[in-house]
């Protein structure tokens, strides 16, 4: 909006010498209009409105457009003529992209296409890929994730893309060393390659990649059956910066120790050895020997053998001593020892990010000792560190005053007083996760001083009430994400305060809160940026509230109204009319019937539906809705519908790329079927 304003002001200045009858837009040069267009990518409707202004704008916009993210592939041919200069094509919303489509688009955008995303698409084969890569020789980036049907033939088609720099083949499980060998020989300019979950790719393929593609910067080899044999070649890559070896169980200490000490990857900046259960500090030190640039190291969920882990942390810290540029260590799920913490504290590297999520041995003393010297720490994750108490929070907040992110879900021993400290001492916080904690209104009021806060998670914080929320809402206008899942003490007043104070709100979760009524939704309808709304199990919400949301929040893309028994077809009708951006909806247990569902089917972007236990739903209504919904990619249905729907309908849907998930879940009457008793606060779950 702002940029459009600028354009208008320019136009006004230029307007004076002209007669009032001429088209005021004619004065704008194409260059200026293009400049305006460059700034219009925030709002998806902006460019649409722009091109509908006049013929010349339409023409300019169609020539200007570089990025295209079509909703449905069957509409793609119409865009061929309109947008001749598309260079980035994102087909992630098109579940069905077949070979003819690929043929057509590759011959249309032969010269311009640089990047294509096929990660969510199916039904194309190596033939289509072959024509794509032969025609569009300028392709630089290709995302073929999840193409589980692609074989080595497709890989040999990819090898035609001589200019390819970024390639993702994650989960292409049929591609073998042979295919990777073709890519290695063909795509010599590769800089980034993701082979995660390509289970048939082994040492030979990776070795050839490392031998032939010398430009590689980033290499993701997660979960491959590889050993140190290929690492010998990989660490010789002169430009390698990111190396991800997550879950490579074939890599072990013995193998890593055979790596030549002289040959090391000097450029390496990030190393991820998560889930490598056979690697301890000895293997790590062999691998990172000589990598002076190392900035980030991720060792989450290492060896499950506790004996090994105990050694890791103390010795590991020692082997990190020389890496002065180290900024980030993630030790999620490891066992931390006192000696390890001490050794880590003695590292002179100023950490920016530390992650101890689910670390068993992390104590107050350890954490306090460690953070003493870390004045520059920005991000700290102590999720589920259940030994942490007030003392830790005290020392963390007093030392690390520039924290921007603090995640401390389920730190159950931290008392409510500690949260006051966070608000007082960490004014730069942008993200705070205090899910399942003792925080109360006093704490929340204190946290409202963190005016930059954009993500706040208060799920299962039963001590929070409207009072705290009201204070918070008035102070944190930048809030984008708020989680109030099962924070049962809040009601409409609190939500209203948030809606008033946080116009940037994009995502809110107020599931399973009894006191929430339509009024909350009516106030939330003021948040025009709202994209995701979850009101599961809010019994006080009806179609009226939902209608207000539908009318007010045009950007809404994800909606979860499961178990809102009072939402009827009327709500759906308005939703169908206004929420044209809706992509995902969960309608389970609602009082919606065939009428509502068929109405919803008119939403052209709706891709994902969960429809379990809709009392008023008949097989015919369901079939009609399914057939009308052209963009559907995933539908969750109760298994009882399976025999009732005609096979031809299911076949038709599946041919269009829709996947059905049949569920056998029994009907649940209660809100808390698993007996978590979350409604009764945390006292009952706090048994030591």
């Amino acid at each position: 909006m702002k940029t459009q304003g600028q354009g208008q002001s320019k136009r006004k200045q230029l307007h004076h010498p002209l007669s009032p009858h001429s088209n005021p837009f004619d004065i704008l040069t194409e260059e200026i209009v293009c400049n305006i267009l460059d700034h219009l990518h925030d709002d998806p409707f902006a460019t649409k409105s722009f091109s509908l202004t006049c013929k010349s704008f339409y023409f300019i916009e169609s020539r200007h457009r570089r990025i295209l993210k079509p909703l449905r592939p069957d509409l793609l041919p119409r865009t061929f003529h309109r947008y001749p200069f598309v260079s980035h094509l994102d087909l992630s919303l098109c579940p069905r992209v077949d070979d003819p489509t690929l043929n057509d688009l590759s011959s249309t955008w032969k010269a311009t296409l640089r990047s294509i995303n096929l990660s969510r698409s199916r039904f194309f084969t190596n033939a289509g890929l072959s024509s794509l890569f032969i025609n569009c020789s300028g392709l630089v980036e290709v995302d073929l994730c999840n193409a589980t049907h692609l074989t080595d033939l497709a890989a040999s088609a990819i090898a035609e893309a001589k200019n390819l720099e970024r390639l993702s083949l994650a989960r292409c499980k049929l591609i073998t060393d042979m295919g990777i060998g073709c890519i290695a020989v063909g795509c010599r300019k590769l800089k980034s390659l993701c082979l995660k979950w390509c289970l048939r790719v082994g040492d030979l393929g990776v070795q050839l990649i490392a031998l032939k593609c010398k430009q590689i910067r980033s290499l993701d080899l997660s979960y491959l059956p590889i050993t140190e044999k290929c690492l010998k070649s990989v660490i010789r890559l002169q430009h390698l910066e990111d190396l991800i070896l997550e879950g490579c169980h074939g890599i072990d200490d013995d193998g890593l120790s055979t790596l030549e000490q002289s040959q090391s990857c000097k450029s390496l900046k990030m190393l991820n050895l998560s889930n490598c259960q056979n690697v301890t500090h000895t293997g790590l030190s062999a691998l990172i020997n000589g990598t002076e640039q190392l900035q980030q190291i991720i060792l989450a969920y290492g060896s499950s053998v506790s004996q090994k882990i105990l050694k890791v942390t103390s010795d590991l810290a020692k082997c990190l001593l020389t890496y002065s540029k180290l900024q980030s260590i993630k030790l999620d799920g490891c066992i931390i020892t006192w000696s390890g913490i001490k050794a880590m504290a003695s590292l002179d590297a100023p950490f920016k990010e530390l992650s101890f999520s689910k670390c068993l041995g992390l104590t107050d003393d350890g954490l306090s000792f460690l953070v003493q010297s870390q004045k520059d720490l920005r991000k700290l994750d102590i999720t589920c560190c259940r030994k942490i108490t007030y003392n830790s929070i005290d020392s963390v907040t007093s030392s690390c005053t520039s924290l921007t992110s603090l995640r401390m879900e389920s730190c159950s021993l931290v008392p409510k007083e500690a949260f006051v400290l966070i608000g007082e001492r960490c004014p730069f916080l942008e993200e705070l996760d205090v899910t399942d904690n003792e925080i109360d209104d006093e704490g929340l009021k204190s946290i409202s001083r963190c005016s930059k806060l954009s993500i706040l998670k208060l799920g299962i914080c039963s001590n929070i009430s409207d009072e705290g929320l009201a204070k918070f809402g008035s102070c944190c206008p930048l809030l984008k994400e708020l989680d109030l899942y099962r924070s049962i003490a809040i009601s409409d007043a609190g939500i209203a305060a948030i809606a008033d104070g946080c116009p940037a709100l994009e995502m809110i979760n107020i599931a399973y809160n009894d006191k929430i009524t339509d009024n909350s939704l009516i106030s939330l309808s003021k948040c025009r940026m709202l994209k995701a709304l979850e009101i599961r199990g809010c019994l006080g919400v009806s179609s009226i509230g939902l209608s207000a949301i539908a009318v007010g929040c045009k950007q809404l893309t994800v909606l979860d109204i499961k178990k809102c028994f009072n939402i009827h077809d009327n709500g759906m009708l308005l939703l169908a009319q206004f929420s044209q951006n809706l992509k995902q909806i969960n309608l389970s247990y609602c009082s919606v019937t065939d009428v509502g569902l068929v109405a919803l089917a008119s939403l052209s972007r709706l891709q994902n539906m969960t429809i379990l236990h809709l009392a008023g739903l008949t097989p015919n209504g369901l079939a009609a809705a399914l057939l009308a919904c052209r963009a559907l990619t995933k539908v969750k249905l109760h298994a009882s519908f399976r025999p009732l729907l005609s096979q031809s309908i299911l076949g038709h849907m599946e041919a269009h790329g829709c996947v059905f998930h049949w569920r056998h879940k029994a009907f649940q009457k209660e809100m808390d079927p698993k007996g978590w008793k979350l409604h009764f606060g945390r006292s009952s779950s706090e048994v030591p």
Partner: protein
Amino acid sequence: MDLKDKVPQHASFTQHQQKWEDPSILDYSRRVESPFLAFNQTHTSQIKVPVQHGVVNELVQASKVQDWDPSAMLDNLSFLEQKIHQLQDLVHLIIGRKGQVLGRPDELAVQQQQLVTADLTSIIVQLISTAGSLLPSGKHTLSAATPSLEQSGQFGGVVFPSAQGLNDGFQPPNAGGCRVSGLPNSVDISRKHGNEQNHIIEEHELKDEEDVEEGESLIPGTYEILQLEKEEILAPHTHFCTICGKGFKRDANLRMHMRGHGDEYKTPGALAKPNKESGSEPTIIKRYSCPYTGCKRNKDHKKFQPLKTILCVKNHYKRTHCDKSYICSRCNTKKFSVIADLKTHEKHCGKDKWLCSCGTTFSRKDKLFGHIALFQGHTPAIPLEEAKAPAGPSDQGDSNQAANKVGSMNFNFSSNVSSESEVQSSMDIKGNVDDPACYFSPLSFDTCNFGGFHEFPRPPFDDSESSLAFLLSGSCNYPQKSGED
């Protein structure tokens, strides 16, 4: 005594039969050529032999391993009893047929006779081996026999003794076995059995020699250079009998042949390897030159590299200067001028599924990747049918098994069969498929192999057919035998 009389009589019916007694008959190529052996049983026997060899070894080993076990002994005794009964039946059979056979000295009768003899042999061998395992002290005699079995590598050591044992009035085959393995060429004989044409082995040896010779650096002038003419090189035989003119590929075979020309050739001196005596004297090293001018192996070439042996010369000349007339029947593309090369290729043809874009095939994936890493622009070639069977060349190592499947499905003893005979065996089956007895007989071996061998040296059923009968190599005739039963 009946037997003693009979066997020589029949043996004299044909030339072949004579040879059977003569060690030189085991020059297999000749036997195949002889019209008499156009019978397909020759092939069958070739296939089965290695298996049975394995069986025999297993048997011996089993008995070696056995400790003093009364129950096992009882088993063995009852087995012996059974065998002796069978032996009796057989002898009766022979007596009963004597007149008839004498009256009709035709091929059929000969074969029947051979069959009976074969069965006889097998039973005797079993008897002896079982009897040996009865006594703790017997182990020694057995183990004394065992090396001859194992060393000879094939059944040759067993065949002979049993055959001669028959002639000599049931001499213990052990002794015979030792004697045969003591012969200078016994190893040769047995090795040849695996092959239809014995020159395969010759040329394999050759190839090795030529390879070894590559690195040799003799100072010029320190050796004598010989150059054979083209015709000489391409001649099929190099050793000719001075009496009858018959040609041989090996001198040893010629010497064996010479024995048939008179007693003077049977002396140890005449039979001994001539080179051995001269080995003590300092001889001038001989090297060979290729007659093809311009060839690096030609003595006139600037960087002349001599060939080490005549065999090297032969192979070199054929490979380098002759047409490649042998075409692989599987891929129809690869051509060879040396038949051994073809055989070697056929062993792997089709198994080399790791293919480079340049057309080179590799039997191992890492070799292909090494090749691709080395050459610019070469890339792995993805076979088109791979799309249909994506599981295809993904896993290493299982390729051989897959390729062997055909063979093992029919015979179930691929591990024991040498790969050369595998090709033959598959052809064999086609030839014999109309004869059910012949077709199934290999399967009965199979059951033999797996059927509780450690308790019983042989399953009680099917003995006469599946036992060592076929040890008499070409002389036993399966179709006929089963017809009699």
